[in-house]
């Protein structure tokens, strides 16, 4: 039905999306080619921009593989922590009737309003007292804690949409609330959980300011700080190189997106009601 209308819509959407598509396209093209000086049309196809993979682009920088490993550890640990803490906390807030529940729920909403990054000096002091400053562990804990309100909120939405009848049935059969949660409810919120897992992984993968300030040592460098340091180093600005590093950095993101597209789009599945 209405194919003409569709074409107009597609045309409009394409026009609006053009800048983004151009940026994505040249992101790929420039990483494997050399443009004419001062121009944008690729002259020659070459892989020299990807040299950072097999040689060190500057003797002072850690190997890209080491940095990638750090980033992976950082992102996956953050994601696991966020998920582990969110599934229990969100269940309590959604389904368990206990006295302080209202208070916690209001607090959770309030937390959204906090300027997390501006707390960074205070966070530093806390890490310092725990002896976790300048360690990957410390940044993981902080990032996970800062992502928690979002995670709990999302998971609460998913729990809310699980029909009460399932739980009622379990309780009436004589199972404890804990067993009901583990065996009946958890399987119901799996889609939400996997969406949250992916989302927090991506959030960790992208994080820039926290590792920059809280873990400046070479042992805890992540791709975001690595890439920004390469860009900031003004003796070698080289968009081809930047883009190749950027491509390398974005590949896992794109892969995750292609694999889990549906689930990611479902992240707000439980939170749509006002």
């Amino acid at each position, binding site marked *: 039905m*209405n194919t003409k209308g569709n074409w107009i819509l597609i045309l409009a*959407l394409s026009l609006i*999306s053009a800048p*983004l598509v151009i*940026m*994505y396209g*040249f992101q790929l093209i*420039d990483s494997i080619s050399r443009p004419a000086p001062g121009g*944008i049309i690729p002259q020659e196809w070459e892989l020299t921009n990807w040299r950072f993979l097999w040689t060190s682009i500057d003797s002072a920088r850690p190997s890209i593989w080491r940095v990638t490993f750090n980033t992976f550890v950082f992102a996956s640990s953050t994601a696991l922590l966020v998920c582990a803490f969110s599934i*229990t*906390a969100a269940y*309590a807030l959604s*389904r*368990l*009737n*206990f006295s*302080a*529940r209202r208070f*916690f*729920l*209001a607090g959770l*909403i309030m937390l*959204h*309003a*906090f*300027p997390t*990054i*501006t*707390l*960074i*000096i*205070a*966070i530093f*002091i*806390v890490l*310092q007292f725990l002896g976790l400053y300048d360690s990957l562990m410390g940044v993981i*804990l902080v990032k996970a*804690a*800062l992502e928690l309100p979002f995670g709990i909120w999302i998971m609460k939405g998913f729990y809310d949409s699980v029909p009460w009848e399932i739980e009622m049935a379990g309780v009436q059969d004589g199972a404890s*609330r804990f067993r009901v949660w583990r065996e009946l409810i958890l399987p119901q919120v799996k889609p939400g959980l996997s969406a949250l897992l992916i989302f927090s992984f991506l959030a960790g*993968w*992208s994080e*820039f300011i926290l590792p920059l300030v809280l873990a400046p040592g070479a042992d805890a460098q992540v791709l*975001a700080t690595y*890439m*920004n340091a390469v860009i900031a180093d003004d003796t070698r600005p080289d968009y081809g190189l930047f*883009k190749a590093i*950027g491509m390398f950095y*974005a590949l896992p*993101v794109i892969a*995750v*997106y292609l694999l889990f*597209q549906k689930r*990611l*789009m479902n992240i*707000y*599945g439980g*939170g*749509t009601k*006002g």
Partner: protein
Amino acid sequence: MTRQTLLGLGFLSPALLAVVMFFLLPVVLTVVFAFTNMSTSTGILGGAYQISESDLRRLPAAGVSDEAVTLLEGAGYAVQPETLALFAAEFGEDRASELEKLHGGATFDDRRAMERALKELRRNPLRKVRDRKTAAELFRVSILGQRFATEAEFQTAIADLGVPDPDRAALTTAAYTGWTFTTQNFELLWKLPATWRYALNTVLYVVLTLGFNVSFGLFLALSTFYLPTRTAQTFRAIWFLPRILPPVLYVLMWQWLTWDQGFISAMMRPFGIEPINWMRHTATHAWIFIVLINGCVGASLGMILFSSSLRAIPETQLFAAQVDGANRWQQARYVLLPQMRWPILFITSYQTLSLLTSFEYILLATDGGPGRQTEVWALAAYHTALSNYGGNLEYGLGAAYALGLVIIGILLSALYLRFFNFRELVAKPRIEQ
């Protein structure tokens, strides 16, 4: 405590612990810091007691008498009977007597001069640098530049020096190098014209970006709603990527698009338009790109939420409208939009809060430039507390900026809670009914 409460708290506790440690505690500390003059110079974890040369001229204003200042000012190193005795005990009588012959009664301004004097010992020279350093310290009579870890040590030192009793308290206060409590951060924020400009910038930023996010998210959701699944998916993917791409990379792409030798300039050249940096040319250029950069990230949130609410609308309503001869615009206007009220309100309130406190994309894109025209409140907090070419980072003032945001955030979210009918949100779990 009931079993329910125990179970509830038990389920909450891991999350609670993490949030309290790394979220709430820092918030409380930030509130405290906002009332201090903490900076690089004062250190974060406490200070020591020290009077330096440049402190001397500040002392009269701090209520220290001139007499005490003169006492402190006295020459740093003196060869006198007391110091010579110390020297003799450590390095031998014969050296002490030779030094007395050479410099008895002399005073030296700094340690370097004292060391030079010690080098003149001929009979049994102090050959090693570290010995001369140790020896020179024995002749020190002034406390200028000396660092005392505790108040008690400093008190003893100034008492030994003979500082009059009434001056000691003021002197100790002036000598403290750590941070102290003060309300001057807020007075400063109030007085500085820049503060108000940043506030205005923040309002501009939030309103414009929010407008873009909501209208664009709505447009994307509505337009992809009508398209075949595959096409719709492609467009959604294009608009979803900014949200998950690392900010460092995403902003780099925009920078490539806009710089003098970038894409826009190259495209415009055939039309005789001089290449300019499209992102930083004027404040207006910067604002347009700030809104676009943040907007493209934010629009996808609206797009996803709106899309799923649209799918929840029963198709029969649309068919009914179609039968009535409504075109798409009319369908959207009269059938779909009215049912989107809640999601739109939700996105608006949710994003107002997150935009208020976000600055990462601005930091990477314009860093508040040109001329601080795109400096928003949260970025000002970051710049004040963590980025300063000259090296003195003002943590206290930065915390005061952050506190302003915290207060606005709490007020807004309280407002939203009322508005969104908190009671319904926290409706009692039905299982206990």
